[in-house]
């Protein structure tokens, strides 16, 4: 196994801890941050105190209140969480320039080529977080020879943990570690592995490459073989990303097309901003709706690539059916077939060029005066959907 030079930093009970940090009156009390305050609303983050009572991410507000009627339920304050994310990144950057934000509350840090013992560095980071951000905010730090093992280590001790997986202790750790605790192994995969005689992580490690390949029926088996041996398999470059997606759960179920338009617009803008930042364009767009008992999706393609949210919105609403059969609970937009936006294909009459120029200006105005300053005319009367934070990788 290579030396442990990868670190994974994970904020404990992120949103709930930040709420307790900002409001000291909530410290020591069970707190839950929810998508929506309604009884059926789902908890996004529960404080340590709430977790001790068995309330966690995914618990419904109604259930949580039955367990603990005193629980303080709050809606997310996205600006606050983004601020803490940036503060934490600032702290971490002092220790290594190679940082990847894996999500709003997780960072992967590469210490290859950086001198020093990582256990003492991790202790220093914890101290600095307490000084620079606040002592209430704690992080679990994992250290390992690759990103995967560093993340696995960070999950082993919560809250305020510090665990290293290295060539001396990995056997002991693997023998005690359930398959389901490995990031990327869900209960279905764990079951498949168990049927093949792999009961725990040590068995998983001991299995041959051929055996793993046959269990996974793909190259994924080989990836797992190397991942468990500390070889870096997860540091793919951004360029390799083939699609971007944005998903949103509706507070009130939508029954018709008109109610869905502002949501699709917001999701398209988010996807478009990502394209703009990455200087890429997409030639495919898919719209997905989760209805009461079923899901629906439609895929569309454009010859000349879409370069901004307005174009994505225009293409996405073409996919939307005139009549929606059922109530929509969740909406997602996927954009795919991503290419570098080196040039933009205009149409014969120069209409597209004008449209892109116009939307570029609208984007600049929205950047200056705030999102939603300029919206398509069809959405003038529509309510704005709140800002939201996805759980995916932050770039």
């Amino acid at each position, binding site marked *: 196994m290579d030396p442990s030079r990868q670190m994974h930093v994970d904020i404990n009970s992120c949103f709930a801890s*930040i709420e307790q*940090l*900002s*409001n*000291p*009156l*909530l410290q020591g*009390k069970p707190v839950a941050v929810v998508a929506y305050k309604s009884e059926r609303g789902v908890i996004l983050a529960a404080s340590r105190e709430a977790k001790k009572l068995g309330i966690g991410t995914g618990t419904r507000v109604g259930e949580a209140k039955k367990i603990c*009627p*005193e*629980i*303080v*339920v*709050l809606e997310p304050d996205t*600006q*606050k969480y*983004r*601020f*803490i994310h940036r503060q934490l990144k600032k702290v971490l950057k002092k220790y290594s320039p190679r940082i990847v934000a894996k999500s709003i509350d997780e960072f992967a840090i590469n210490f290859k080529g950086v001198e020093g013992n990582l256990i003492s560095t991790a202790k220093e980071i914890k101290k600095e977080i307490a000084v620079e951000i*606040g002592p209430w905010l704690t992080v679990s730090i994992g250290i390992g020879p690759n990103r995967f093992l560093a993340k696995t280590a960070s999950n082993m001790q919560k809250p305020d943990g510090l665990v290293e997986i290295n060539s001396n202790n990995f056997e002991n750790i693997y023998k005690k570690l359930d398959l389901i605790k490995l990031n990327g192994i869900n209960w279905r995969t764990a079951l498949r592995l168990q049927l093949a005689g792999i009961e725990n992580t040590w068995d998983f490690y001991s299995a041959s490459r051929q055996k793993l390949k046959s269990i996974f029926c793909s190259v994924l088996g080989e990836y797992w073989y190397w991942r468990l041996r500390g070889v870096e398999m997860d540091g793919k470059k951004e360029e390799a990303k083939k699609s971007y997606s944005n998903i949103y759960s509706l507070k009130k179920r939508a029954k018709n097309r008109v109610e869905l338009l502002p949501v699709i617009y917001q999701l398209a803008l988010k996807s478009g901003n990502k394209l703009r930042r990455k200087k890429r364009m997409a030639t495919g767009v898919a719209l997905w709706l989760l209805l009461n008992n079923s899901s629906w999706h439609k895929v569309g393609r454009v010859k000349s690539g879409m370069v901004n949210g307005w174009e994505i919105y225009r293409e996405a609403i073409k996919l939307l059916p005139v009549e929606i059969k059922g109530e929509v609970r969740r909406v997602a937009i996927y954009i795919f077939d991503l290419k570098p936006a080196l040039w933009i294909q205009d149409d014969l009459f120069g209409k597209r060029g004008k449209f892109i120029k116009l939307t570029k200006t609208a984007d600049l105005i*929205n*950047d*200056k*005066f*705030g999102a939603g*300053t300029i919206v398509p005319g069809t959405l003038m009367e529509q309510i704005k959907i709140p800002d939201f934070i996805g759980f995916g990788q932050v770039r």
Partner: protein
Amino acid sequence: MMEKINSPVSVIMDFNHHQRKLRPMQIQWNNRDWRVEAVGLHHQYYSGRKLVHIFSVTANGMFFKLELDTQSLFWKLLEVADGSV
């Protein structure tokens, strides 16, 4: 219980040039003066190109979320809470 207020408020603020720190000292709200005891978090964000500062403070067992608009230099009281359900 948390209550959204969203209305202008009078605030006395202190700026310490040695520490390069600023903090609200007193809030005048509901015909009462509230002396700030602790600043839980001071964060800022851009609304377009306008920088907005948010101070989350406690005073006399109450929580106040204050907004300072750096363009108009006006204060707004966004939320008040007493730390209960």
